């Protein structure tokens, strides 16, 4: 392709005396054709518009389908969100209370963030501040490979390693809230670490030098200068990790135990919005009340994801630097 432009230059130079030849060869016409310019522009523009179409379509479709349970089946939205009982298959009093799942999702997300943040931020500081060489050579590939490992594999490891571990040391079945949070926490580690490392690298060197100049140790510099300066971006990294943890479905479903009650402790089985959708969607018939209620859970999932997106936007707009 570079040849094409070079060829064009040579051709243009050699045939300067006779411009009609250049026109006949068609190359000139082809490369400066206004029609193809507008055709190309149209192609490109329509592809870009497709993104907008996709987002609007996802929102609209899930909105319409998710509101069915309130509009068609007359479930009260308030009891839906605050109800504690999820017994859709009860013949006499089917009840659709989604609070245990909303709570489960929140709990898994927060616990995962608590588990992941120290290790991820520590790794990020190591990569960006302590040892650029090892960070580049060792930790960068480690993080890239961890990001690439499919979530099902994290779930499988959780099932085969973490669940038996919990069963032996903490009793019960081993399928519980904290197991789910642990698996997801490990899963979001690399995401948080790599974004956190970027935000630490973005802190200007002059700040560090100023701190060293007044006799600060490495740790004082990191703790008092670098971390506050990277502040909002560090939090963005954590929130992005949380939004990933919130949306994770299969890995959580494999280890959390799928109980429909509100868990009383970290070692009780629980369920999240994603796990109940994963489990029940296949067994419900389209148009049934259960199916509609599941779509409403999907809508709740979508709305909370939007909240995360807004939060990230808000945080990244407030750039300190």
């Amino acid at each position, binding site marked *: 392709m570079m040849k094409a432009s070079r060829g064009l230059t040579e051709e243009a130079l050699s045939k300067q005396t006779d411009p009609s030849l250049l026109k006949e060869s068609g190359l000139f016409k082809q490369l400066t054709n206004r029609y193809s310019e507008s055709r*190309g522009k149209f192609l490109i523009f329509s592809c870009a518009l497709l*993104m907008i179409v996709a987002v609007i379509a996802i929102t609209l479709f899930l909105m319409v389908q998710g509101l069915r349970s309130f509009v068609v089946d007359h479930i009260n939205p308030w009891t839906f969100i605050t109800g504690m009982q999820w017994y859709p298959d009860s013949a006499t009093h089917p009840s659709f209370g989604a609070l245990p799942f909303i709570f489960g999702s929140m709990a898994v997300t927060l616990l995962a963030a608590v588990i992941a943040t120290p290790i991820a931020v520590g790794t990020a500081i190591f990569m960006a501040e302590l040892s650029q060489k090892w960070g580049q050579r060792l930790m960068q590939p480690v993080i890239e*490979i961890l990001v690439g*490992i499919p979530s099902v594999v994290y779930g499988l490891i959780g099932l085969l390693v973490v669940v038996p571990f919990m069963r032996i040391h903490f009793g019960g079945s081993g399928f519980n809230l904290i197991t789910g949070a642990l698996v997801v926490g490990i899963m979001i580690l690399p995401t948080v670490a790599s974004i956190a490392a970027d935000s630490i690298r973005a802190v200007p060197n002059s700040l560090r030098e100023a701190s060293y100049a007044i006799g600060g140790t490495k740790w004082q510099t990191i703790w008092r200068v670098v971390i506050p300066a990277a502040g909002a971006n560090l939090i963005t990294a954590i929130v*992005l990790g949380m939004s990933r943890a919130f949306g994770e*479905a299969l890995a959580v479903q494999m280890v959390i135990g799928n109980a429909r009650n509100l868990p009383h402790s970290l070692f009780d089985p629980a369920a999240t919005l994603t796990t109940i959708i994963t489990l029940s*969607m296949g067994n419900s018939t389209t148009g049934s009340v259960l199916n509609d209620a599941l779509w409403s859970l999907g809508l709740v999932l979508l709305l909370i994801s939007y909240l995360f997106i807004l939060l990230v936007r808000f945080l990244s707009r407030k750039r300190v630097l």
Partner: protein
Amino acid sequence: MNSKVTNRIALSLIVLCAGIMAAILLALLGYILVNGVTSISWRFLTSESSTFLAGGGIKDQLWNSFYVLFLTMLLTVPIGVCGGIYLAEYAKPGKLTSFIRSCVEVLASLPSIVVGMFGMLLFVNYFQFRYSVLSGALALTVFNLPVIVRVTEDGFRALSRHQKEGGLALGMTHWHTIKKILLPAAFPSILTGVILSAGRVFGESAALLFTAGLSTPNLDFANWNPASPNSPLNMFRSAETLSVHIWAVNTNGIIPDVQTVANGSAAVLVICVLLFNLLARGVGKWIHQKLSGKA
């Protein structure tokens, strides 16, 4: 405590964090490979999975994974690259552009299960594609588009301005400058990103659960007519992929050798993803050497 001691302690804790991260990777890979490789055999890779007997393989699932991946890439790459070119070259700062950017951001951060549910509504039910390879590939296209858009935009932005100015100075139109000069120059970085995203698509499961389905019809690998229902190439048959298979045997599986099958499948999956990773690095380096004339 004096500040030097604190410094020592804190810095060792930070090194410890990095150590934990590396240890997690080693433990994960070690566990998967050590436990899984023993159950991988030629027979495991080339025999069909069984619903209730021991000794099933993953031939169909492996094929489905690659087929869905291929179709997804066929759809995503052109659309994503065009979208990225728009953002890098044509987009003028303004409301529309920032809206498109937000949409890319939203698409990138939606949970994959939400994309799967959307795919179920639109492709499976509305377009009547049923649980099929095509529905799965379309859902994954939605899932993968923002990645390709970003990769392309970054690739274009990393180019030097002189390349573009050179093209325009020759009197070429903007479009031809993009097509003949900028796109080839950005090709290596786009290709690397595409291969990396392929690894992500290959391992994706939640979006496929409700679009490609949990079963595969009996495939006849001698029949390559895309229209016949048991052909591997048929786009309108349901297709359980490898990663969905791992989940399915653990959740609803009644086969006695769940662990062997799950470990073996996970090992195959991880090895494939690692190969995609290595390929992406290798290809990027190779093209870079070729273009800079060092090879």
